[in-house]
């Protein structure tokens, strides 16, 4: 017991070493992109990505912001940003909403076969969008969803993980909470809005962020389902400009920013729900 303070110090140093290692590993590529976005295309193509900040910041970013492409010059960074935000927020909102509603139905209503319905929902995890592109595309065509935001968003938003996440939480809520609400005169809708939703806000925030990332990062599906220049998203735009160019790197940086901001905003909720300390 004599060397406890020393042991504690060593343990802390070790923990910090691990954390710093992780930080460098995760942050390295991001810093590499940011610094590379301040070099000329020529430097990047001849010497590869750059670790140090160059002198082309203003040139690259002003060039990319003024960039126009497509038949009618409709593909601009701002237009792409708008599309990405619509898709990202659309996926995030709808996914969160459907996840919490599905879980609510499965957990709180004694419907026949609820367990089976849940596992069928869960089994969709085994069939990611990429594995059913062709059929999904046929459905999108027959529903007249090609070249529309809805067409980009809808197939992405069935997220079994979200349902699972909420279900696990709802199962931890004591049954008496529901019964107390029933005696207090709260019907299913009131109980959902007054009790379940406020209690699940932290978790909803986490699902929202995750779903936003999924929507934001979609590449292949938007490429398939939209041929219209006005529906270009930022992630698709990167390819249009070229990854190994200075302005391309600048666009990558711009593309990372919105999810980053969102994560910072939701961070507190996110951690709280992962630690699940917000129960009672």
């Amino acid at each position, binding site marked *: 017991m004599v060397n406890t303070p020393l042991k504690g110090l060593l343990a802390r140093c070790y923990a910090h070493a691990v954390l710093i290692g992780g930080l460098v590993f995760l942050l390295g590529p991001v810093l590499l992109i940011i610094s590379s976005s301040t070099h000329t295309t020529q430097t990047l193509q001849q010497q590869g990505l750059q670790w140090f900040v160059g002198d082309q910041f203003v040139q690259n970013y002003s060039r990319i912001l003024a960039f126009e492409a497509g038949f009618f010059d409709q593909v601009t960074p701002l237009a792409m940003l708008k599309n990405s935000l619509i898709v990202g927020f659309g996926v995030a909102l709808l996914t969160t909403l459907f996840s919490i509603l599905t879980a609510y139905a499965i957990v709180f209503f004694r419907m026949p076969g609820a367990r089976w319905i849940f596992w069928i929902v869960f089994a969709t995890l085994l069939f990611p969008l990429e594995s059913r592109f062709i059929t999904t595309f046929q459905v999108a065509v027959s529903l007249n969803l090609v070249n529309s935001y809805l067409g980009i968003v809808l197939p992405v938003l069935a997220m079994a993980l979200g349902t699972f996440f909420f279900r696990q939480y709802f199962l931890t809520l004591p049954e*008496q*909470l529901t019964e*107390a609400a*029933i*005696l*207090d*005169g709260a019907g299913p809708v009131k109980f959902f809005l007054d009790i379940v939703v406020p209690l699940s806000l932290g978790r909803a925030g986490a699902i929202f962020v995750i779903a936003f990332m999924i929507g934001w990062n979609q590449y292949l599906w938007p490429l398939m389902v939209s041929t219209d220049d006005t529906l270009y998203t930022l992630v698709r735009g990167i390819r249009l400009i070229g990854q190994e160019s200075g302005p391309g790197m600048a666009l990558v940086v711009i593309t990372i920013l919105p999810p980053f901001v969102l994560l910072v905003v939701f961070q507190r909720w996110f951690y709280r729900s992962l630690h699940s300390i917000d129960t009672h």
Partner: protein
Amino acid sequence: MANVQLRGVRKTYPNGAVAVRGVDMVVEDGEFIVFVGPSGCGKSTLLRMIAGLEKITEGDISIEDRRINDVSPADRDVAMVFQNYALYPHMTVRGNMSYGLKNRGMPKDEINRKVEEAAELLRISDFLDRQPNQLSGGQRQRVAMGRAIVREPKVFLFDEPLSNLDAKLRVQMRIEIKRLQRRLNVTSIYVTHDQTEAMTLADRLAVINDGKIEQIGAPIDLYNNPASLFVASFIGSPQVNLLPVTFDGSRLINGELAIDGFSDLPQSTPLVLGIRPDDLSQASHGQFTMRVDIVEQHGADNLIYGALHGITNAEEDGAEFCFKASHDLLPPLESSLSLGFDASKAMVFDQQSGQRLI
């Protein structure tokens, strides 16, 4: 205020399990009635049927002569206090107490007035703006009661409300619940498995066993005059002493033990003699001789446990007799004590049916 009538109430679950097998009783206006029984006896199910949280399979339940079988729980005018409090974790104390009123469309200032009145009564006025996780167990239980009180229901239902509290707080809250019920004079039904709680709180006590009411009456009547072996052994702490015996025409026999003073008992069937630990006394030539095994000193009195001399067929857990003596009687362990009792206070049961014979 209202009375509650149960007529032939039965509960069968879809899987065929029977929880309540025919209960008939009337809870009078303003009465505090306690359902007591071992876990799984159906007492909670019965309470939940009155609350409307369980469907009634058969029979009728009425509150103030209005049949409520098909009335939704919210419209039955009952309020319930749960064992785990079931407070809404994200709402303040005020929010918790006013939620039910808000749902009933009561004007805001009236809600506030009622909540503050109830908070005053329960001495939680200082916590109205706190959240449940900032409160102690006792305070949470008060909030749960406050939530029930503000509704001014016809009937209070308590489902083991003190089980999650520590022993000291339980006694304190027990007294408070009793005082509150006296003051508000609301018909109350209280479920517990704790016989002390049941004895001390109840105006009338219903001992429930295997989905049926074994006996119902004032606590002290149930203690003094249990109708069956079950009631005798469930009510009273320390538990009643039970000794299997047979009757030979004039005496109760167990092994070498023969006890005089009994008559009119069947000779063919096995019987059980029951004597409360406080009905035993030290006597120079008593009916029993006890070999002292353990002495528990409770302060005011001592509980002396030991095996009786000469008995043969006592059950494992019935082998030890308990004798409640005053605190100055402290016999050495392994010593022998001669004990006597007044035959008029002894109870005799039919071992098979559990029926009280004397």
